[in-house]
């Protein structure tokens, strides 16, 4: 895992660039290409929750205006974003972390 806590640094370090961009209080949608049977087992989701607390990150958030993508493979971002009508606002960690917003309608 590229952001495993076994690296000797705090989990927060990887998510620090996102914090200034998450200034509101509304829930944020969460996207990942990590496969897990239960949300508890997603290291990416749980670490993002911890690092960005008290911001609520929701796996099922159809109405969210803002989304966080935390990816194993940066190449999966366009597919995940297009499926939900999202576009990237900012990308970090070599494309593995991205903040997305809803694409303006036609």
């Amino acid at each position, binding site marked *: 895992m590229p952001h495993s806590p076994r690296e000797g640094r705090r989990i927060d370090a990887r998510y620090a660039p996102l914090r200034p961009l998450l200034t509101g209080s509304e829930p944020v949608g969460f996207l990942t290409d990590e496969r897990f049977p239960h949300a508890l087992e997603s290291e990416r989701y749980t670490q993002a929750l911890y690092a960005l607390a*008290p911001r609520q990150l929701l796996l099922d958030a159809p109405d969210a205006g803002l989304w966080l993508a935390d990816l194993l493979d940066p190449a999966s971002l366009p597919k995940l974003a297009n499926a939900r009508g999202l576009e990237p606002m900012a990308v970090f960690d070599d494309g593995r972390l991205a903040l997305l917003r809803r694409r303006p309608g036609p």
Partner: protein
Amino acid sequence: MNGPRVSKGMLALFLFAGAVAVVIFVQRSLAAPDGGWDAWMIWNLRARWLLHAPSFAEAFPAALPVTHPDYPILLPTLVALGWWVAGHESAAVPVAWAAVFALLYVGLTVLALARQRGWAWGLTAGTLLLSAPMFVWCSADQCADIPLGVFLLAGAVAVIEASGEEGRRRAWLHMGAGLALSLAALTKNEGLVYLITGLAAVLLIGKGQRWRDALWLSLGALPGLMLLGWFKLRYAPPGEYGGSAALAMLVDPARWLLVSVHVLRRFVYFQGWTLLLVLVPAGFWFGLRNQAQPGVRRVALGMLGALGLLAASYLVTPYDAVWQIDNSFDRILLQCLATLLLILFVSVPGGARLGRAPESVVHSSPS
């Protein structure tokens, strides 16, 4: 204190095990300053919510059941308090609490046994705990199971000590046991199970004073239980257990088989426990047969009841049962281990054979 004398080898072994445990604790804490999965996912996460949520009520979002917003908040409160005092979210705060509770876990075991049967037994138990990989790993991972184990042990010590007392001291000790067990309930949900089964055991075992002992224990637990009730009823969202699905799982023979096999599998998890798990059935065996100390029998019965109920909870878990057993059963055993060592070592016959000859024998020898 009575009992066999401590040999230099025994003391050296205890100190060596302690030094190795400290080195591993420091190494793991440096490698993972946020602790293990439970620490960042449950306890330290909640501490952050307590510190930063716009209001206390918003620190327990029902929309995020994955973060277990219904879990008791003693440990997150301690961490949040430390961060508030420090002025920033230093990783050292939860690490320091983990170290304090690990020290208490071993220290209280050693002292309680030293008082009951002498230092040799105390140091032997301490060495066994320190040499359990699961104990050292969980301590560094900042698991709440160690603090829970400390409160459980404190309650057990008070119940055992009380059984040899009368009058006001007996009442105070039972109140202390109630207080300790209520702190366990404020630490993790399992703590409430230990409190209930402990109270039931006090009512079932002993002569004459059962109801009075139970009353004092309940009074000691009352403040903590009121706090827990206030949190659970006012702020905590409903837990994930229960419902009609749980009832269906409870009467499913295939599920009983699955859970039984996987719970028993944890008893041969050699890499986490070495041979220590042999002491679990031994603790119950000797503890339940300890006719001289009804307090020990009460603790043994209470622990047995709690372990049975906690194992049965896997039948109705909303999660994958195997995944949950693999991820939690060893920590449940860790909660109990120090207390089981205590009841085993105060009950096992032949104390004089441990370490050197008893002091009385040494003193009577010509010098």
